[in-house]
């Protein structure tokens, strides 16, 4: 477990400031939720943390190490894993193969040209563990393209877990997951809490207030409030920003 520190991060798309001087420090083992209306720049922030996008200025650090200039694969090797809001898996692979490849990425060489990878017990067992943690073990042998939406969300989580991260960046893992399914998923996330440093972007406020140690509110690219769920819930600025849009928050 490691801390994640974001300092004065900025990013613009043309004239649009999508990340506006964001600073954030996530403690080791903390589950830090980021909430905010659609288009606030949450996904763009995650993409800069994971290295998929490069920031215009500012820095990102894991522990003491500045990772701002590293590529996405390099950051993964240091223990930073992300899941995608819009499912991004290998559709022609089974769920197990998707996850086993993430295990393979993390341990050992991938420059092996002859052994049959499908028979590698070590990869498959580690992959099954990650699938169980995400609650998808029963569907291990189904092609990813044949999985349901809810199962895709779980596969996203399982793949991220399989890279053996220290820090998990979860971009709306519950997006589009309905009712009872969401409850089960929150229970899965609850079990992960404390084992990893987690940045959780989520729209489901019940989930956020059930899971988060602290919450940051992102509006128009800036963080307008950070604190315990209770404090954020009662913050007048947050109430103003959300008023009319998501009244169930207040």
């Amino acid at each position, binding site marked *: 477990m490691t801390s994640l520190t974001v300092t004065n991060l900025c990013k613009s798309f043309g004239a649009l400031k999508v990340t506006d001087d964001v600073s954030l420090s996530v403690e080791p083992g903390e589950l830090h939720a980021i909430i905010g209306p659609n288009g606030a720049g949450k996904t763009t922030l995650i993409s800069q943390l*994971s290295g*998929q996008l490069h920031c215009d200025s500012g820095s990102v650090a894991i522990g003491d190490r500045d990772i701002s200039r590293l*590529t*996405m*694969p390099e950051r*993964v*090797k240091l223990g930073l*894993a*992300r899941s*995608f809001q819009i499912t*991004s*898996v*290998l*559709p*022609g*692979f*089974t769920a*197990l*193969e998707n996850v*086993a*490849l*993430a295990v*393979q*990425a*993390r341990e*050992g*060489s*991938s*420059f*092996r*040209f*002859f*052994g*049959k*990878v*499908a*028979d*590698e*017990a070590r990869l*498959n*067992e580690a992959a*099954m*563990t990650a699938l*169980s943690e995400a609650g998808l*073990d029963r569907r*291990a*042998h*189904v*092609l990813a393209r*044949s999985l349901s939406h809810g199962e895709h969300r779980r596969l996203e989580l399982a*793949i991220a877990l*399989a*890279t053996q991260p220290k820090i998990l960046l979860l971009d709306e893992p519950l997006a589009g997951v309905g009712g009872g399914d969401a409850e089960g998923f929150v229970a899965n996330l609850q079990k992960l809490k404390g084992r990893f440093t987690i940045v959780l972007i989520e729209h489901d406020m019940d989930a956020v207030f059930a899971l988060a140690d602290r919450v940051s509110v992102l509006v128009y690219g800036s963080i307008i409030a950070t604190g315990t769920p209770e404090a954020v819930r009662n913050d007048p600025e947050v109430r103003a920003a959300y008023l009319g849009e998501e009244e169930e928050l207040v």
Partner: protein
Amino acid sequence: MTYMTASATHPDRPVLSGRVKAALVLFILFALMPPLASALNDPFYVLIGTRILAYAIAAMALDLILGYGAMVSFGHAAYLGFGAYAVAILQSYGVNDLILQILFAVAISAIFAVVTGAISLRTRGVYFIMITLAFGQMAFFFFISFSAYGGDDGVALAQRSTVLGMDLLGTDYGLYYVSLALLIALFALCHRIVGSRFGRVLTGIRENPTRIEAIGFSPFRYQLIAFVISGCITAIAGVVLANQAQFVSPAFMSWHKSGELIVMVVLGGVGNLAGPIAGAVAALLLEEWLDALSEHWKLYFGIFLVLMVLFSPHGITGLLKKMGIVRGQQ
């Protein structure tokens, strides 16, 4: 966790067995062809058959990057040329051994593939096609001006290669069966590669490069290695081709040939290794029989297929699947 065994078989995907079965059927047909041809009193087919085997090797090698790596190389005929010229060049120095010629061909091809692949892989899609085409043409024009070996007229070979001093390729039948043995061995090699750790990364890059980076792989090096392996195997096809024709010329490496290789792969079905072998058979038999039509008809057909691969990879594969030509994976 308990209900699965560690060796994971995939219930809804009889992947490997299908590919291997299709290949075995093809190999058996190939093995039976010469006795049939001589029974029909048409031994000429044995030489045509050898040509088909050479192109089958090349098409399979191209499938390794096109089908599994989503890299559409439009310059692969260059490697056929390197293989063929490796035979001519070594022969002019009195080296006739097939194995040495193959090693030489593979060495040249590896160097060319590393350099041109590293540059080409900085581009994507149409640009990748264009730049591999450009490199292929560079090699083509190099051999056009290579006057020591006949320039654009090419050069006839005094004899066929020997294997460890044995004249195995002396008869057309010997050449045919050695070529078939090479095809089978190289299929086995490609099959192993595709099913390996490396193969899984390569296939993953084709499926979704962003995801592959997000789990910690840098696609470039895997793609480059696959590109080099593919080029080297194609060069072996060139060595066979030189022995079959007993003649070597830059025509082996013209861009038409690169296009034909793509046609064979796409015709047979991308991404299953056995399909392109069948594609080579189909394309070359078509060429034998429809020679009059071929030149223009093929060019436009080729462009059409390239566009299909680019813009609708599942479209053409799906089409072939519906027609029952390709088995149902990927």
